[in-house]
């Protein structure tokens, strides 16, 4: 533990704090999630630490529950994107030949459309539920994980121990999970932090555009959307999520940087 640099410590502490808040939201939040407790846009006071929102709900409560929704969606989408992306990437790298070609060209194709635009196109016909959001975001983002996983695995797939495993007749499942995965894990873990941030930004953007989490559910992008009219009157309620998103993503970045620095010396980094 003592080898952890101070920046990574801060990052870990804040990341941990946010996750704990997400898990224990109902116990921490002073009021109920959709409970109207006061006047519209009250300033911060001892009763309402951050003030109230556009219809008189406690903003701190909304932020805590919003963090819960945002972090939960981002985590689920990251996990989905990593499982799909890395398994397909490993399969492409290990099989080579036409499997690799088909998968890689398909990923090129999806990446040729900006993911926000593609998500908007898909969400225009899909019902907007949390499950759909997670699937759309996770699958769109798995293209990036695919590229990274494939690039890392191509280097590993030519190693002698993989050759040895092939020669003794192991199946592709063994090669991927027992030979390649353990060696490709560190760059993937570092990337995971960055993807998680991207997911947080992505889901906040979608919710802000009104195509993500639907009210009365709270989430950080939605809080901005609900309170944006206040900005013009000088009421900063809509800016609260900016602080939360920025601190969360900077602290995850610090952790990811540390993991990356630790692993670059081991295995050609993100190459």
């Amino acid at each position, binding site marked *: 533990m003592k080898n952890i640099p101070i920046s990574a410590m801060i990052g870990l502490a804040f990341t941990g704090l946010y996750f704990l808040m997400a898990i224990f939201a109902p116990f921490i939040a002073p009021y109920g999630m959709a409970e109207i407790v006061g006047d519209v846009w009250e300033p911060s006071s001892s009763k309402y630490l951050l003030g109230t929102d556009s219809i008189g709900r406690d903003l701190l409560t909304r932020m805590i529950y919003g963090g819960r929704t945002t972090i939960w969606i981002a985590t689920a989408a990251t996990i989905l994107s990593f499982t799909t992306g890395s398994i397909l990437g490993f399969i492409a790298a290990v099989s080579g030949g036409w499997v690799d070609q088909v998968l890689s060209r398909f990923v*090129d*194709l*999806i990446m*040729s*459309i*900006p993911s*926000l*635009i*593609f998500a*908007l*196109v*898909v*969400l*225009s*016909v*899909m*019902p907007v539920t949390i499950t759909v959001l997670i699937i759309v975001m996770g699958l769109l983002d798995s293209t990036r994980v695919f590229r990274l996983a494939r690039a890392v695995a191509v280097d590993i797939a030519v190693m002698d121990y993989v050759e040895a495993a092939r020669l003794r007749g192991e199946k592709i499942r063994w090669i991927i999970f027992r030979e390649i995965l353990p060696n490709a894990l560190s760059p993937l873990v570092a990337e995971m932090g960055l993807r998680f*941030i991207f997911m947080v*930004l992505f889901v*906040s*953007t979608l919710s*802000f*555009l*009104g*195509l993500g989490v639907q009210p009365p559910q709270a989430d950080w*992008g939605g809080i*901005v959307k609900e309170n*944006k009219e206040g*900005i*013009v*009157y*000088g009421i*900063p309620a*809509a*800016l609260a*999520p*900016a602080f939360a*998103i*920025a601190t969360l*993503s*900077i602290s995850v*970045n610090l952790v990811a940087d540390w993991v990356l620095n630790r692993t670059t010396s081991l295995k050609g980094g993100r190459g």
Partner: protein
Amino acid sequence: MHPILKIIAQRLALSTLLLLAASALIFAGTEILPGDVAQSILGQSATEQSLANLREELGLNEPAISRYFSWLGNALQGDLGIALTNGQQISESVGSRLKNTLFLAGWAAIISVPLAIFLGLLAVRYRDRWPDKLISAVTLTSISIPEFLIGYLLMYFIAVKLGWFSSVALINDNMSLLEKLNAIALPVMVLVLVVLAHMMRMTRAAILNVMQSAYIETAELKGLSGFNVIAKHAFPNAVAPIVNVVMLNLAYLVVGVVVVEVVFVYPGMGQYLVDHVSKRDVPVVQACGLIFAAVYIGLNMIADIVSILANPRLRHPK
């Protein structure tokens, strides 16, 4: 044929093919998914009769393939179809909005590109000292906040608290250029901040990469000053990656514009797209998606071609 022309022709053909595939993907994205377009437009309570009517009107009874080709054929001739929500020609609405969006993105590009390269050079020159650290910290913060929040932060502090610019960016054709620039000052600022951060970080990385070459060490050893080494030796060799970075970020700008337009209620393509996604107006969404994809693919293609032109080593693939 000249080898460079041949490469350019190849890239063009490749991009056209990619765009074709992308159009198919966009079309498929709105078609093959579970759920019927007519159902999602009219909602759960729609009667069988109105559903059937709408399906007929949208041509949903024909097979998807033939609808795709007629859609694509019309789009190629500039006919993007008719919006479901107001029954107007999509290409008419798109025309002026596209112009507005390009106006916004163009100014953001004009300001951010030179600034990013300059800051990148500065960060490399003072690597690991306070200017570098300051630039790194500011850019890290600005890529950690979503664009729309940067928009509201600027709106709150600059437009509302300081009262310098107006908080909504409404423009029309009767305004003079100066008035227009004043109106779009804030959205341009947001876009510049967002793109600048990415561009500057990537420029810095590209130059640092070149700085590790042997000829840079030679230049340093023969006593050139810091800026001379960068300007005369590192920069020319870093041009190709930097151009690539610039183009990639301009492509990124295309996406950033969507959100920023919504924040500042700017009458551009992005707002048009988002509005009609929530109204489930599929033809508009398809048309906008196609245009955004075309711009994105086009910029990426230019990035490709320029980096091949700038780097002779790429002209002879192994």
